[in-house]
């Protein structure tokens, strides 16, 4: 049952990443067209920057579950690596709790914010007048899937720990070793 859920979560997160990525490429094309029209024909689509901001917000939120499942969170492992596997497994669970401590309240507050923005039907103050609730509800959906993913990964890791399957815990929640990073095929990080 848990494994099926996890497999479904992996699939869903990939799908969300592709949607978000396609959106970003679309945003790049839209901005390019806007720049071109503005410089050549002195007209503007109006709000290309604002729309790409929304696409950016949605696509990043859509990518959060993928980042958790692929263990892409930056963790400082200087003290972690020398520890015995059992203690490391505990720390892996603590790391997930850490994510929950910050991002669960954030998502809860987001729900209250979204309710307000639906209730008042708040619009952006720009010429575009976007009803904020539209992009925000998609963003919120991403945050919810993100929280559920953290929860699921925690439950899976905990059951594996209780079974004594430390390798299993590492595979789902540990800090990736360099070999694993290699196989995943990219260096991560943008700074």
């Amino acid at each position, binding site marked *: 049952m848990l494994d099926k859920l996890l497999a479904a979560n992996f699939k869903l997160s990939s799908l969300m990443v592709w949607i978000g990525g396609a959106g970003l490429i679309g945003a790049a094309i839209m901005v390019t067209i806007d720049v071109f029209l*503005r*410089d050549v024909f*002195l*007209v*503007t689509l*109006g*709000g290309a*920057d*604002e729309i790409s901001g929304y696409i950016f917000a949605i696509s990043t939120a859509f990518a959060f579950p993928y980042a958790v499942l692929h263990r892409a969170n930056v963790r400082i492992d200087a003290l972690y690596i020398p520890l015995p596997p059992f203690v490391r497994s505990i720390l892996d669970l603590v790391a997930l709790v850490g994510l929950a401590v910050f991002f669960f309240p954030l998502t809860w507050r987001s729900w*209250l*914010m979204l309710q*307000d923005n639906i209730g*008042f*039907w*708040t*619009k*952006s*103050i*720009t*010429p*575009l*007048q976007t009803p*904020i609730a539209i992009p925000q509800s998609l963003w919120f959906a991403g945050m919810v899937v993100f929280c559920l993913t953290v929860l699921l990964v925690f439950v899976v890791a905990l059951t594996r720990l209780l079974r004594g399957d430390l390798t299993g815990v590492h595979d789902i929640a540990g800090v990736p070793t360099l070999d694993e990073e290699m196989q995943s095929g990219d260096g991560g990080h943008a700074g």
Partner: protein
Amino acid sequence: ELDTLNLKVVGTWGNLSNWKVNEGPFWNETMPEKSGGKITADAVPQTDVGIKGFEVMRMLKIGVFDVAHGVVGYIAGEDPVVEGIDIAGVAQSWEDVRGSAEAYWPIMEKQFEETYGAKLLAVYPFPSQMLWCNAEVNSVEDLTGKKVRVYTTSMGDLVEGLGGTSVTIAFAEVVPALEKKVVDCGITGTMPAYQAKWYQVATHAFPLRVGYSMSFAAMNLGTWNRMSDETKAFVEKMMEEYNESAWKNMIAEDEMGIICNTGQGGTCTVGEPGNMKLVELSDADTAARKKALEEVVLKRWAERCVEKAGESCIDDWNATVGKITGVTAPKP
């Protein structure tokens, strides 16, 4: 006997004079002094805590702050009624602006209480906003086809109504955009234009008043209700004094802003003056402005406002701001 209070206060932009001259000194010095140390504040400008102004009222409502200073234009998206105090291009003189603010106060006060659970404490301006162009703009007619950087809905409507194209880019990107003619004109306040060195890249100061960045101070209603009557009365009295001095300071600052950008009309006391050409508005310009207002700006604002608040919104506005400034918002 006053209550002992420590208020969390957020102000407007830390680099602009409203914070430096009005808000900061008031909360950090005047208020504690006059209350005999009873009412103190942790006051910070929004720029120091990395917030943009859109979220200020929501944060006030949910109790993140006790008192918030903010700009009406930033909350217009939630509330077209409040937006009515600072619609682009309506008021053109300080007399009209002050008159409108006083006439519209009861409407705003009610709106703040109902929409944001907040007690309105003050309504005061920034230096007036006008157009700064790196192009030969000597009349409204010259705006035809010009790209103007705007940042609010009604500014965009005004520019469109006057025949220009509205462009939205970030404030930080305006100076290079003006210089490279990515945009022809930008809109900002007189002193802020000087402080952000727009005078170095723009040539024409076009004094059609686009707005006054009408600002407010408001207190979370929960905080307000917890105060004793005596404290409430004291705070209200203090805020009245605050309001008076804020208006006085900003009007002086506005005049200085024009002097500093153009080098005309007096001595710039805050730095080297620029030498932009100060355009004079003609009767034709005024006529064009009123036409754009009634046909585009006010028409669209009226649609937004009626959708949110019903037709009384238009009647209220025409009876107050409209009457003072001599324009009429049409009913949709």
